[in-house]
Structure formats: structure tokens, C-alpha cells
């Protein structure tokens, strides 16, 4: 009888161990905020979000109508959004996301396209929340949101300044972009 009870306890312990391992594996597999040993710049804060709102900061109704907005934006109305910069017909916005996420939104009226990327704000410590499109010639057009403290983005020897916590780099060859400040540099893998 005693042996049977011990076996039952051992089985329960083994099951509990397996369950705990599964939970830990599942939890860690869900977190992808970049390596903890990577160079960090700033605190992840975004000054553009703190400035006074203007009429042009409102996200277009079309963007809010996509199901993505309801699932990812902190407010279904896109409250708190800020226009970061315009580049030709392209407009870049940021908007607070749910559960600590921050979103980068792009709207191009001429191309009739729109897109967004929402990621944990912690990503800004070690890099950028970005979107990239590969064109037919294999080059990438990269749009990025960076935290305060970043001053430039660079690829293939072409450097652009950070404007409103964002950058636009077109015609990037290769799969990486460098962002940085006067003192620190980070590499973002943007390719596939």
C-alpha cells in the first residue's frame, strides 16, 4: 500500500514538473523583445507622444476601420496618435497600443496602401519597431520608430536623421539597418 502511495506521489510530482516546464516554455516562447545583452539606448520613451496634439495627428478613419486597430490600439479611436513625419505621399504615425505595446502606422494615399506594426515598447531599448517592404530589385524600403536618444538611421553608407522619433530609409541593400546616437550603435535585422 505504501509503495502504491509513493508511486502515485511520484507520478503527481512528475506531472507537475512537466506542466511547469510546459508553462515556462510557452511563456518564454511568447516573449521576443530582443536580447538582454544588446546595446541599449534611452529608456524607451517617445517624445513625439508627449507633445501637444494637432489636427493632423488623427489617424485616418480608414486605418481605424481595419480589424487590426481594434485588436492592437489602446483605444479604438486611435486616441493619443501623433504624426511623426511625411515623406512624399507617405505619412508615418505612432499610436499607443494595448498592454504596453507601441505602434508604427504608415499611410500612403498615392499608393493606396496602409500598414502598421505593433510591438512591445521594450523593443525600442535595443532597436526599432519597423516595417520593411522588399521591392522587385531586392532592396528594402524601411520605416522605423525609435525611442528618444536615437539621432540617426543608416544603411549602405546612407545616413538619415531621426525625425519625430522615426526614420525612412529607401533602397536598403542587405538585411540590416544601423540606428544610433552619438555614443552608441544598434543593428536591426530587417530582412527575411
Amino acid at each position, binding site marked *: 500500500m505504501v509503495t502504491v502511495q509513493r508511486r502515485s506521489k511520484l507520478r503527481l510530482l512528475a506531472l507537475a514538473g512537466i506542466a511547469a516546464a510546459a508553462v515556462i516554455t510557452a511563456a518564454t516562447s511568447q*516573449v521576443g523583445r530582443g536580447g538582454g545583452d544588446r546595446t541599449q539606448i534611452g529608456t524607451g520613451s517617445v517624445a513625439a507622444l508627449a507633445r501637444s496634439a494637432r489636427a493632423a495627428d488623427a489617424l485616418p478613419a480608414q486605418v481605424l476601420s*481595419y480589424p*487590426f486597430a481594434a485588436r492592437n490600439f489602446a483605444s479604438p479611436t486611435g486616441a493619443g496618435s501623433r504624426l511623426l513625419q511625411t515623406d512624399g505621399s507617405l505619412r508615418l504615425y505612432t499610436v499607443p497600443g494595448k498592454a504596453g505595446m507601441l505602434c508604427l502606422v504608415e499611410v500612403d494615399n498615392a499608393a493606396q496602401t496602409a500598414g502598421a506594426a505593433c510591438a512591445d515598447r521594450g*523593443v525600442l531599448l535595443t532597436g526599432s519597431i519597423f516595417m520593411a517592404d522588399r521591392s522587385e530589385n531586392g532592396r528594402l524600403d524601411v520605416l522605423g520608430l525609435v525611442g528618444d536618444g536615437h539621432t540617426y538611421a543608416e544603411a549602405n553608407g546612407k545616413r538619415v536623421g531621426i525625425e519625430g522619433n522615426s526614420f525612412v530609409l529607401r533602397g536598403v541593400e542587405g538585411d540590416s539597418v544601423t540606428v544610433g546616437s552619438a555614443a552608441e550603435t544598434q543593428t536591426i535585422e530587417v530582412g527575411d
Partner: protein
Amino acid sequence: MSRTALFILIVALALLAVPVAGGGSYIYWWQHNMPTNTVGHDGFAHNHTYNELYFGPNAGWTARLWEVTPAGYTHFVRLCSGNCFYAHPPYYYATSYCANRDPNGTTHFVYDCRDEW
């Protein structure tokens, strides 16, 4: 204008209106909880207007959305941080694909992928 001509005009206008009235978009969640190292695809070509990948509130890995025509032409490839969508005109009859990967390049499961056409 005769009654016959008026009737024909009304019928023609009604026929023109039919495709518009029935032209609502289709929304299709085609991938849920995809296993590691698997690339998801919807399996059906359409003139898509919207693609979305949803990983979760703690998203951070790089996501990838792309479309490929039946002839093998890649319509577009969009790479982005975390959860993302891409909306575009229905230029191409294509199949949607989605995946995400960790910093080591391993593709991980995706919570949801969806497209609209």
C-alpha cells in the same frame, strides 16, 4: 424617351448596381497557433486587399507577410516588428503567406493570420 427605352435604362442601371451591392469583402482567418518552423498559407488565391498577422500583446519578433501568385511571382514581402497588417489594392490574384521568427531565425508559431479579399 419612350417607356421601352426608360425600362431598358432602369434595367441596365439595376444590373450595374448588382455587383456593387454584392461586392462585400470576405474575411478569412486561415491560420491559428501554427507549429514551430512552419510557414502558414491560406491555400487559396484571391485578389487580396488586406493581410494581418497577430502574435499577441507581447509581440516583438519579426513578422513576415507575403503573397505569391499561382505562377510563382511574389507580389510583395512585408517584414515588420510584432503584430502587423498591410492593406493594398487588389492588384494580384495571389496566395497569402505568414510567418514570424526569433533572433536566431527560427520560425515560431503564429497566433492568427488573416486576409481579406
